[in-house]
């Protein structure tokens, strides 16, 4: 097997405990309408014995109602279905202490969000926004969220399904893993820069080139997984590590990746900007306090 | 491929106008620029720094800036420009607008 692209469900079965995946059921919620958001697969499994919610894309599904949805694209129904699965996860563990909230595993192989006219008329941006907010809420509530990029993690679809996780692991580029906003050839065309020049520049600056290794350097991916066979053990290890990190209050998720980006030397300007602004605000903050106080 | 930086110094013939406070003006749109004028102790001189993707117009930049500095009689000012292909006429106009802001 030299790639998992288009095989999110295969990857899912490889990662969770064998035969444990129960599709369309998360906590008390059942997703009974099979035709609803078929591009999104949600359900419950066990991972090393722990109950986990799993969310993936099905590259083989085609949404009859919204024909722009195929090949793993996240459409409006898919976005809201994924968001519902997260809210159902939150509800299922509402009374559990933060340390016992069930993990959420995101299997990431999606080429984009629904790009159609009906989607714009009804607001595709809300569907993906809704899913991101749900994940951010679950992460803050204590659920360990691990995204495993096993194929395509493209632009807005990666923002939607992946970048709100606590930690992101990605299969090595040799398995065809794609993480980018746009391929370098398209970037080259749009910003009118010679492709050879861009390729040369990307050796020293990971900020625009496509691929998991560049996102790793930027702190956008915590770990690159060297072999497909390692996926399961890496996800299990990351969940365990997250339990510890979250209990200690360590930064995870987008904030954690910003810290990592600086530590790995990929995004060093970001903390400088933040520090400058904090210092400047501190100098004037008194002007903005309640005057009566 | 890096951005070009052009730096030089000039002195107005009747240098007498100093700035009370720094000023920023403009947006780096296509064919446009932004400029910062800052008071600085330069023994009456004016320093200019231009950052631009366009190379090879050093003499034009120098002429436009010297004309501006002379007309405004500027002294002890550091001028800092971010350019994106602005024509000399636009450069001239933005400099004057920035200068007008200092009086406002």
């Amino acid at each position: 097997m030299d790639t998992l692209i288009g095989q999110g469900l295969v990857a899912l079965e490889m990662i969770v405990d064998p035969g444990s995946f129960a599709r369309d059921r998360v906590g008390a919620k059942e997703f009974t309408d099979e035709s609803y958001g078929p591009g999104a697969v949600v359900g419950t499994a066990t991972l090393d014995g722990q109950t986990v919610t799993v969310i993936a894309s099905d590259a083989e599904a085609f949404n009859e109602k919204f024909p722009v949805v195929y090949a793993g694209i996240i459409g409006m129904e898919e976005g809201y279905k994924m968001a519902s699965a997260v809210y159902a996860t939150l509800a299922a563990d509402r009374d559990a202490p933060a340390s016992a909230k069930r993990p959420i595993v995101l299997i990431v192989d999606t080429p984009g969000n629904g790009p159609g006219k009906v989607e714009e008329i009804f607001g595709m941006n809300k569907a993906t926004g809704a899913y991101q907010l749900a994940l951010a809420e679950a992460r803050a509530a204590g659920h360990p969220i691990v995204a495993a990029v096993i194929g395509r993690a493209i632009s807005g679809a990666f923002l939607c399904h992946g970048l709100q996780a606590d930690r992101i692991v990605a299969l090595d580029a040799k398995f065809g893993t794609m993480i980018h906003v746009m391929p370098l050839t398209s970037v080259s065309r749009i910003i009118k820069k010679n492709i050879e020049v861009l390729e040369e520049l990307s050796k020293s600056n990971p900020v625009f080139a496509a691929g998991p290794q560049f996102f790793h350097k930027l702190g956008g991916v915590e770990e690159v997984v060297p072999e497909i066979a390692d996926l399961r053990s890496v996800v299990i290890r990351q969940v365990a590590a997250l339990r510890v990190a979250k209990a200690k209050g360590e930064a995870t998720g987008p904030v954690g990746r910003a810290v990592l980006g600086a530590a790995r030397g990929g995004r060093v300007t970001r903390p400088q900007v933040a520090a400058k602004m904090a210092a400047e605000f501190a100098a004037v903050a008194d002007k903005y306090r309640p005057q009566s106080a | 491929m890096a951005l070009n930086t052009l730096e030089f110094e000039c002195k107005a013939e009747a240098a007498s106008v100093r700035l009370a406070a720094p000023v920023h003006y403009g947006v780096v749109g296509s064919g446009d620029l932004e400029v910062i004028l800052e008071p600085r102790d330069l023994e009456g001189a004016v320093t200019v720094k231009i950052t631009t993707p366009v190379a090879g117009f050093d003499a034009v930049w120098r002429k436009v800036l010297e004309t501006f500095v002379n007309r405004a009689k500027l002294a002890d000012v550091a001028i800092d420009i971010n350019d994106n292909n602005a024509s000399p006429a636009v450069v001239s106009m933005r400099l004057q607008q920035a200068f007008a802001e200092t009086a406002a």
Partner: protein
Amino acid sequence: MANWSKLQTRSFLESSARDRAIGLVDEGTFTELAGPFDRMSSPHLVALGEAVEFDDGVVTGVGRIGKRPVFVISQEGRFIGGAVGEVGGAKMVTTIDLAIGFADELRAANPKIAPDELPLVAISFETGGVRLHESNAGLLAHAEVMDAFQRARGKVPVVALIGSRIGCFGGMGFVAAATDVIVMSEFGRLGLTGPEVIEEEMGKDEFDASNRALVYRTTGGRHKYIMGDCNFLVDDRIAAFRGQVTELCKLPVGDFEQFRRIGSAALVEKQMRAVALAAEMQPKDAYDVWRRAGNNDPAGLGDAPVDDFRKQAQRLSV
């Protein structure tokens, strides 16, 4: 600096990011943070030989409306289409973080502090999303802003203002959707996929990107108002946006949940009902949905003066 009173009468559409920021808050109260004099421009554009801007195309700062500290983020569309890179993204995130931190600090100092003395964040969007010259860093910044919004929930209200040339698209389209309140003018546009990309995907017969009227009625302020995707439709003047934000400034943070379109299980259920309607209707045009919402003469309504539009428009309920 532009005269504040003059700014009030100015078209929001025509105004620069800085003028929008200054004019939004009370006269003389705006302090810019990481402003042009700090010269925090993008190192990545320098490496590519592209023109830079001292503020990286985002104006950030703090001002006041009445007693309320208002943290402002204002994007400049004339600089690379308002696209977000590492520096601009960091400025956005840090502004929200400072607002959250200040809210925490003020509440800790005085648990009985009046709701209208606590911070609010206002974001004037003008962007197509990620800046391709530094796309990876821009994408990661989007995720940080989204996360900051969720952290701000219940602490600091976040208000989106959309009425500038570029509109608000791409990843920033999700980001705007995730704010508490959206205020638009009829010239504002909000969506995910820009018109050119839809045309490329669907063909010119389905969607002609050069048809401005079609583009506006698909993603423009009037349509978004009918859909409930924008909460308030205001005139195209800085004073009008400021007036709406001033009204919102009177509300305690808890009251902002009522304006949200997404952000809870119940709201997702409601949006799912809207999507079911989309599936059932398969609208060819936004006007089909206007009609469904109870507007019998969509074209007439679309052409009516905005004042009349606000009075007459029936909004979609699902």
